[in-house]
């Protein structure tokens, strides 16, 4: 390999046919005189612009059936000609410097074009030199070079993460690996499970209970996940009413009065709330608005007057002290019910964290745009993160995640995308180099993920996500069975 050109943080390298270099590989451009090496990643492999190649290809393009022949080349010069014609140009991005065997984040030097030697840097060497994995490793899978890639749980702690890719590429599979990895390190993970995919995390693929069985708590709102009004803080209830049920400001003020009145009388219950609205002296329109929201709360079956069937969040989180996942199964909930539940959970979470009643929590939100109110997007990356809610967004529609989330994301796990529009949105993430993402992500096979950000010390690495011995849930129900065949008679 020969160093050809450097423009900005892009380096172009000439590579010859016998060198096995592909997209995603890391190379070191070593300048022995300076005792330094520039670490670059190959983001594209192109044909070198060899002069005269067009004429050569045109000459070879004659129809082989009408023009054929033989070359008598006694000196075997042709092999050298073919060698030149197969020369490739590697487009690489600079990611760091190795100086005296240590990683330095200074890229402001230029290696010599004539003296430099270029060699492949194995992913394992990169992992070692960049100390990726750390003390609390979560094993994600293997790279193309069969190096084991693990990310340090510390690099997810206090961070904002995004997992995205087109459907069927393995996003949920990776998120399950992260959940179980976090549980292994005694973390608490709260999952808003839209499709019931995480409900069987405690079962092995053969249906038997696995090591996580007792640490995965699945709650279904309206079924085994209900709360009493007495448990709910007024501010949380007002968020539910205004954000999930779009209660206008005037009506909210009346509701606040009703709630306070019932609270003072220690009579906060669904039945009492209904009665209070009915007997409240206020404008009829306001009363109608309050009633409609009251019935929405009632029909959600999420609220109960029976204290025995109520779930207390604080107690629930207590069960995960040694690591565990709380899976909120939203698969059977309507859109409004989802929003009510999510507003309650986030409000309650914020309340408990601000009072330091629970430990910080890792929060997985799949297709969050379907239940997350507009106001929460900014909250999640600012206030809630500060309190101790460390969110991971999972989506196959990158445009549904707000731009400021991308800008502040600390880790991005990218699966295959082909659509230009999707790639453009992803490239807004601060941790993503546009050219790297667009070039590598476009060619990722299923179950291969490009990891970017703090988890890989800002060295983008492609990993084949490992298998997981847990039962899958939430699979798409199909009309045709896999073995089904049909005979079609053609007249």
């Amino acid at each position, binding site marked *: 390999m020969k160093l050809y050109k450097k423009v900005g943080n892009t380096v172009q390298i000439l590579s010859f046919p016998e060198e096995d270099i592909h997209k995603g590989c890391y190379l070191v451009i070593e300048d022995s005189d300076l005792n330094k090496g520039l670490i670059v990643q190959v983001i594209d492999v192109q044909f070198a612009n060899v002069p005269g190649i067009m004429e050569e290809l045109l000459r070879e393009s004659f129809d082989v059936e009408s023009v054929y022949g033989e070359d008598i*080349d*006694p000196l075997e010069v042709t092999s050298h000609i073919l060698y030149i*014609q197969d020369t490739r140009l590697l487009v690489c991005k600079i990611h760091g410097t190795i100086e005296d065997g240590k990683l330095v984040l200074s890229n402001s030097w230029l290696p010599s074009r004539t003296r430099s030697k270029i060699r492949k840097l194995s992913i394992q060497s990169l992992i070692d030199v960049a100390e990726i994995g750390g003390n609390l490793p979560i094993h994600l899978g293997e790279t193309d070079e069969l190096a084991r890639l693990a990310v340090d749980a510390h690099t997810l702690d206090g961070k904002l993460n995004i997992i995205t890719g087109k459907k069927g590429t393995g996003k949920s599979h990776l998120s399950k690996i992260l959940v179980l990895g976090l549980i292994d390190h005694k973390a608490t993970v709260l999952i808003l499970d839209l499709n019931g995919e995480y409900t069987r995390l405690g079962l092995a693929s053969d249906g038997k209970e696995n090591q996580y069985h007792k640490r995965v708590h699945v709650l279904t709102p309206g079924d085994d996940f209900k709360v009493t009004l007495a448990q709910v803080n007024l501010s949380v209830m007002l968020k539910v009413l205004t954000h999930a049920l779009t209660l206008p400001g005037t009506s909210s003020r009346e509701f606040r009065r009703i709630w306070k009145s019932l609270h003072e009388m220690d009579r906060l219950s669904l039945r009492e709330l209904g009665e209070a609205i009915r007997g409240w002296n206020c404008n009829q329109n306001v009363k109608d608005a309050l009633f409609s929201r009251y019935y929405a709360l009632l029909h959600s079956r999420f609220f109960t007057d029976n204290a025995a069937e109520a779930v207390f969040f604080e107690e629930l989180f207590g069960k995960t002290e040694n690591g565990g996942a709380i899976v909120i199964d939203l698969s059977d909930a309507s859109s409004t019910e989802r929003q009510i539940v999510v507003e309650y959970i986030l409000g309650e979470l914020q309340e408990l964290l601000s009072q330091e009643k629970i430990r910080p929590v890792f929060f997985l939100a799949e297709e969050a745009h379907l239940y997350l109110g507009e106001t929460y997007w900014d909250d999640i990356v600012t206030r809630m993160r500060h309190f101790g809610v460390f969110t991971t967004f999972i989506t196959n529609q990158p445009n549904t995640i707000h731009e400021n989330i991308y800008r502040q994301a600390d880790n991005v796990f990218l699966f295959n995308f082909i659509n230009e529009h999707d790639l453009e949105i992803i490239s807004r993430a601060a941790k993503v180099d546009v050219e790297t993402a667009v070039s590598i992500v476009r060619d990722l096979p299923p179950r291969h993920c490009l990891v970017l950000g703090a988890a890989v010390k800002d060295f983008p690495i492609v990993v084949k996500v490992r298998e997981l011995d847990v039962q899958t849930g939430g699979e798409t129900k199909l009309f045709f069975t896999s073995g089904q065949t049909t005979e079609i008679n053609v007249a």
Partner: protein
Amino acid sequence: MIEQLHYATTPRYNFPQQNGDLLLPQKIIELSIRSMKDLRGEILHPYELDFPETALSEQTKERTTPLNGKAFTTQLTPLRPTSDDTPIVAIDVSSIRIGETETGILCAIRGAVVWARRKLYRYFRLGPFPFHINEVNKDEAISLLRQYHFSVSGYSSPIDVPTKLCDLVEKWIQMSICCSSNRSVILWDGSLTAGTNSNPLDVVSHLLKTARQRSNSVLAFSKMSKIGFLGRRIAELFSKYPPPWLFEVQETPFSPTLHLLGSVYMARFRNNGYSFRLDIDRIIPVDQRIDAVQRLLGNDLVFQSYPETLRLAHIYSTFTASEVIGIQRYIAQKFGLRVLTQRNVRKMLFGPFGTRFDD
């Protein structure tokens, strides 16, 4: 005693063995290797490929003398293509200068033969043969050239030798084809004007004679001929006549040392094509000459008035820029040369104005 019959081995090719022609490729290969064996440690200055006036001059050079017709011998001859499966064989050879060393020049030669039979084409390429010609080893090359009747002065510069080696290879391939073909139309690039350094009279005469003995017809096409009459190009004079046609031009060579071994024609085969000078072996009777051209038209594709076989031969022999780089790499690796790009004084002096068209 049982009498045993003696069977002679069937000759693979029926070359005129008395000329030692069979040995020529081996001699060329040996000359190529010997010329480069002392290169180790030398510096190779490759020619710039985006500035190739020196490198490509060899292969674009037209080896045809301009002629001025003095009279029209016959009327314009309309042609009718004859499809009879006559094999069409075309030969072309290219040479290219690929760089300089401190002591000499590096060049490469390659030849191509293309056969057309029933509109199917088959090609054969020989080479490339790289050579390093310097003052020390040029005598060996000159000796080889003289052995094959090419007149080369002992005072010739090494720069002139590659062109002559190219001519030698071309003549050898032409001889091989003339010897091995029967009742074929053989196409050469250039003219049948003999007596020049590149076309020795006895060599060309021998080639044509050998071709005739096997009922072959040799047709030589010139791409850049300028045949005029009364100060006007002949092609312009006959532009209103629908092709295909031939027009014989009676002319005299400019120099008494030159010999026209072919009858010179102006040929135009297609409406949308060009007119070319066509030389046909003048010993062949006129009707056979016309017949040969008609068989060419009937058995080969003719695009833009130029035979496809000859076009392919040119394409297959010509060196592309990537091939030149490949040959430079071969020489550098195999013979231990250090490659150092030569400074382009013109570019250094004139920058973007240092074009090859400047003087």
